[in-house]
Structure formats: structure tokens, C-alpha cells
């Protein structure tokens, strides 16, 4: 599906508003939209909302053999998916440039900054390490995907607990959550991306651009930073020229924003931890706002199933009893058979027409033998049922028997094609074959 085009008047209005330092949603230049973090019931599952942009993050783990050149390090794997749910223009199964760019940026922000201690993920050096997989799904796209995704990734990683393992000799024991409490990952620091959109060749800048702002921007600068003001990655795209003081100013702003976001993340993690510890309610069901009129909840409902047995009995009693007799399989042509009344087999017809052609051509090798009634068919089938694949052509006599259906009434014509002996008596080949099979 195509994206709704941006009209000239929207573009002009947006740019003029930015010149006047006004934003569509009433924010100031450096304001972030509201960030909301909610956790699922599973460990390592979270949804991050940045305004209307939504990202789902889920961390999972698996024991794998390490990379050859990094025998003592666990593996980190990131995958951001842009599903069509997020915007109509995202097509399923297509690696767009945007997706590649975002995934690369995430890897640089989280893996290359060494925020996760990968050495602690080693179980047996050179043999078994943990592979941590971070799946991120964009659910709704309203601009600034990368900030939301980076927050979701680091929150999910902080929230995740992996199963405990113990090593005795070469034996690796995995413990279920009931046996031993799962262990959190060791995280050195929390990098968060902050995006700056530039307009009018870098004259104006906005933090956390919305989707419409992104569509009119000239360039984008993304700075990933942790709360210690260490820059983890920095990327400028869109081909704008920035002065070094502009970049420095951005990094200062990023420092402030990252500190705020990190505090929020820690608060959210703390709240969830408390809720879990106290055995209170947690998970997505609790995060649905009750006061919204678009939301509704129902407590668990008892379903009266007292009469299901009677109902079932009634239905079965009323229903026609299934026919006890299983109809006999019918063999149409070699390789095709049929049980019960079904779709008319078209193979036979094809064969029929081909044969007619042959007849017209004056070929004498195909001989139609007198009509054999259904009993012959059953006989032929009993051959089949005794010895599953009904291949009648691998005989020493190089004899091929084709049983063919006639339309109606059900007649089966036996056709014998033989290289050595041209003509065969009507029923004999079938019978002979049967005997042979039994003898086998």
C-alpha cells in the first residue's frame, strides 16, 4: 500500500511553524513526547510508547556453540522488524534501506558499545555460550523509530532473566525457573539513542521528530549515549553539513535527554520488580488504561457447561450414524486409487482420450479387452491392498496392465500392452499377477 502523499500546504505549514519554533503537538524544540514503558508477564518483554510510536521488544536466549574467533564470548543478535501494522507502506518480507539502516544503527549502539558483558555469557569455553536474541517489532510508526527501538532494546535486556546453568566436567545442566531463580544479564551501561532533525540546511533543529516532521526534514543526526555521557555511536544522514559547534551542542542536549530517559527506565524496572516481588498484578492487562472508553475489561467468567454432555448426546443421537461399511477401494489406473464416493478421477479420462488418439493412429499394441464389471476392480484392488504400490509394469514378461474406468456404468477395461506377447486373455493377466504377488 502506498503512503498518503504529503501535500504542499502541509510541507509549507510545517516549515513555517518550525521557523516560528512551533510544533504540531505543542512541544518545544527540545521536548520528547511522552515515553511509556510497560512490561509483559514474560521476562524480557516490554512495549515502549514514544508518543504514538510503539515498539515491542522481546529478548530470548539459546545455548549455541561460539564463533571460532571468539571462543569465550556469548553472541548478541538484534533484529528490528517493520511490520505492515506500523504503517501501510511497510511491505512484509522486504529489506528496505530504512530497515537495514536502523538495524545497523542498533547493532552499533548496543553491541559495539559493549553494554552487555558477553564474556559472562560463556558456559563452556569454545563449546557452549548463550546467544541472546533481541527481537524488536515496530507496532505503530509516528516518527523517530530508532529512539523508541533503542529504548525498547535496552529495557528488554535489563528486564530479561536467563535460566541458570551449572557445569560439572563436560555436563551442562539447565535449571527451570522453579528449580533455581533465573539470572539477569550483566549490563555495563545503558546506551540510548537521541535523534535530532535538521531543517533549512541545519538552521533549525528539533529533538524527537514526529512522522510528519521527518517527512520534511533535511537531515538527521542520531547520537547514542549513556548516562555517563559517553558517546556510543553517532550518525549523521541526509547529507547536511553541520558545524562542529552544532554537533557539540547536540551532544550536550543528548546528555540531558539520556539522563532523563535512563531515570525513567530505571523507575519502570523498579516498579515492575516491586510488583512481581509482592505478587501483585503485572503484565499488559494491568497497563490498559481503565478510564479510556476504547478499553474494556471483563473479569473471568464462569461458563455453565453442565448440559454439554446432554447436548452432545442429543446431537449424536440425532445425527445419522456413519455408515459402518467401509467402501472398498477402487483402482482406476496404476498409481491412483479411490476409497468411497469422491471426486471423479480425471486421470482415467485423460488416459481414455489418449488411447482414442492412439486408436485413430492405427496402433495395434493397445488392445481393449472386454468389459469387466466391478468385481474385477475389487480384485485388482485387493492386489493393491496387499502390496501397497500397485506397480504392475516391472514384470519379467514386460507386460503392462492398465485398469481404466469407463464413465458410467462403472466398467473397467483392462488394457494390456505387451512387447513380446501381443494379445492376452481377458482376465488372466490380473489374476496371474495376483498369484505372483502372493507367492512373493
Amino acid at each position, binding site marked *: *500500500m*502506498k503512503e498518503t502523499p504529503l501535500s504542499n500546504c502541509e510541507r509549507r505549514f510545517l516549515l513555517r511553524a518550525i521557523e516560528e519554533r512551533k510544533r504540531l503537538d505543542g512541544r518545544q524544540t527540545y521536548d520528547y513526547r511522552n515515553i511509556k514503558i510497560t512490561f*509483559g*508477564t*514474560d521476562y524480557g*518483554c516490554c*512495549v515502549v510508547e514514544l508518543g*504514538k510510536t*510503539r515498539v*515491542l521488544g*522481546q529478548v*530470548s536466549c539459546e545455548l549455541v556453540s561460539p564463533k571460532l574467533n571468539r571462543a569465550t564470548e556469548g553472541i548478541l543478535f538484534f533484529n528490528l*522488524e517493520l*511490520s*505492515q*501494522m*506500523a*504503517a*501501510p507502506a511497510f511491505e*512484509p518480507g522486504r529489506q528496505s534501506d530504512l530497515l537495514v539502516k536502523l538495524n545497523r544503527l542498533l547493532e552499533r549502539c548496543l553491541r559495539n558499545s559493549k553494554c552487555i558483558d558477553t564474556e559472562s555469557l560463556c558456559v563452556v569455553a569454545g563449546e557452549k555460550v548463550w546467544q541472546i*536474541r533481541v*527481537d524488536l*517489532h515496530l*507496532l*505503530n*510508526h*509516528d516518527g523517530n523509530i530508532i529512539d523508541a527501538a533503542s529504548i525498547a532494546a535496552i529495557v528488554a535486556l535489563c528486564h530479561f532473566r536467563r535460566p541458570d546453568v551449572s557445569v560439572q566436567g563436560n555436563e551442562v545442566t539447565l535449571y527451570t525457573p522453579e528449580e533455581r531463580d533465573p539470572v539477569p544479564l550483566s549490563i555495563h551501561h545503558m546506551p540510548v539513542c537521541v535523534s535530532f532533525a535538521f531543517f533549512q540546511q541545519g538552521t533549525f533543529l528539533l529533538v524527537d521528530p514526529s512522522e510528519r516532521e521527518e517527512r520534511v526534514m533535511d537531515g538527521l543526526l542520531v547520537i547514542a549515549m549513556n548516562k555517563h555521557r559517553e558517546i556510543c555511536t553517532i550518525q549523521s544522514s541526509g547529507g547536511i553539513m553541520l558545524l562542529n559547534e552544532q554537533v557539540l551542542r547536540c551532544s550536550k542536549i543528548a546528555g540531558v535527554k539520556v539522563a532523563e530517559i535512563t531515570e525513567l527506565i530505571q523507575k519502570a524496572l523498579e516498579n515492575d520488580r516491586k510488583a512481581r516481588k509482592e505478587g501483585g498484578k503485572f*503484565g*499488559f*492487562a494491568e497497563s*490498559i488504561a481503565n478510564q*479510556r*472508553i*476504547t*478499553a*474494556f*475489561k*471483563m*473479569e*473471568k*467468567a*464462569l*461458563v*455453565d*457447561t*453442565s*448440559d*454439554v*454432555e446432554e*447436548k*452432545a*448426546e442429543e*446431537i*449424536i443421537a440425532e445425527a445419522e450414524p456413519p455408515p459402518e461399511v467401509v467402501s472398498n477401494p477402487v483402482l482406476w489406473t496404476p498409481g491412483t486409487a479411490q476409497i468411497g464416493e469422491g471426486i471423479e478421477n480425471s486421470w482415467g479420462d485423460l488416459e481414455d482420450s489418449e488411447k482414442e488418439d492412439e486408436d485413430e493412429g492405427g496402433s495395434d499394441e493397445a488392445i481393449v479387452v472386454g468389459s469387466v464389471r466391478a468385481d474385477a476392480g475389487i480384485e485388482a484392488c485387493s492386489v493393491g491392498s496387499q502390496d501397497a504400490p500397485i506397480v504392475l509394469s516391472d514384470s519379467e514378461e514386460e507386460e503392462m496392465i492398465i485398469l481404466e474406468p469407463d464413465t458410467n456404468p462403472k466398467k473397467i477395461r483392462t488394457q494390456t500392452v505387451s512387447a513380446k506377447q501381443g494379445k492376452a486373455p481377458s482376465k488372466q493377466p490380473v489374476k496371474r499377477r495376483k498369484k505372483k504377488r502372493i507367492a512373493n
Partner: protein
Amino acid sequence: MQTESKIRAEYGTDSGPRGPGCSLRHFACEQNLLSRPDGSASFLQGDTSVLAGVYGPAEVKVSKEIFNKATLEVILRPKIGLPGVAEKSRERLIRNTCEAVVLGALHPRTSITIVLQVISDAGSLLACCLNAACMALVDAGVPMRALFCGITCVLDSDGTLVLDPTAKQEKEARAVLTFALDSVDQKLLMSTTKGLYSDAELQQCLAAAQAASQHVFHFYRESLQRRYSKS
């Protein structure tokens, strides 16, 4: 009566978080929570949660265009990894169910796309997908012949019937049956089963699902009434 007491007894011993008797877990639904799709809904059954987004009637690719009805597409996205065969098969089941109720002939040469994202799987996932898809279709205003709902029930090793099972119950069950039922006369739209069961048990499960569907449709009605309470 006998069955009921039997079910109750069974359930009492389980001492799970859910109460006695055959029950549905708590349900929650939020509509219109995504700004980009034409319709969206998140549906929760206990800890199972699915998010659905619907686009339509929208433009259709020429290769998929059908001249006399809308092209219905269902995309189911797992939470971890890439979609596999299991997702494809579920997509098909959901698509066939939707095809039965959506009045596609009113919008020929268009596409109706349903995107489902698994948020968390704690049992009865397919049923939850169906419910989320239905609420999202309603939110998008796609014309429908009737509403539909999904109900999963399982049969234990001793033949006890459990509605809306958790993941653990599904795992231990002898048979898992999922039905899609329509709201007009609780007719069966789709059924998929796994495991062994007798035809009497199938009818029992179906009857139980029909009883449970009344609750689900009641839930639909309440939540939609609330949604339109200010208009």
C-alpha cells in the same frame, strides 16, 4: 449436573489461579490504540495477548486483485524470530474464518489486510488471534455478515473439559480443539484440532464452546457500547 460437579471437583484440586468450574480467564480489549492502521485492537485473555491492525478497503496490488470481491490477507507475526510454517497455517485458518463473515463483495478490487502481532502467548493463542482480528475489523468498519469469536478447549487425559486453557494445560492435554463461531446463530465457522478424542467429546467441546461464545459476544457488546458511549 453430574458433569458440572465433576468439572468443579477436577478444578478444585488444581488450585490454579483460576476459580472453580469451567471458566474463561479475564478478558480485556482496547480498540483504536494504533494511529496508522484503519482499525486496531489489542485483545487479552489472561496472560495471552495479541495486537491486531486492519487496513481496508485499501488499494490492492494488480497481481492480487479480484474483480468481484475484496482480497483478504492475514499476516501473523510471531514474537521471536521469523514467521514459519505454524504461523502460515494459522494465517490460513484465520483468513478462512474472516472470509466467511466479511462482506468482501461490497468492495471489489480492494484489499483488506489484517496484521496480527503476538504480544505474549500463554495458551489459547489462536482463539485470541481470532478475537483480536474480529475487534480490529469492527474498529475499521469493515462490513461483516456477523461477528465471530475463537474458543479453545482442551480435554485432559481423563476426559475433563477445560475452556480457554493456559499454556500448561494445553501442553498436558490429550486433545486441543479450537473453534470459531459466529454471533448470529453460534454456527461453526472454523475448527482445528490436535490430539485424540471421540465424536461424543467433540460434540461436548463444541457445546461448551457455544456456551462460552455467549460470554465472549457479551463482552464484545459491552466493550463496543462503552466505545460508542460518547458519540
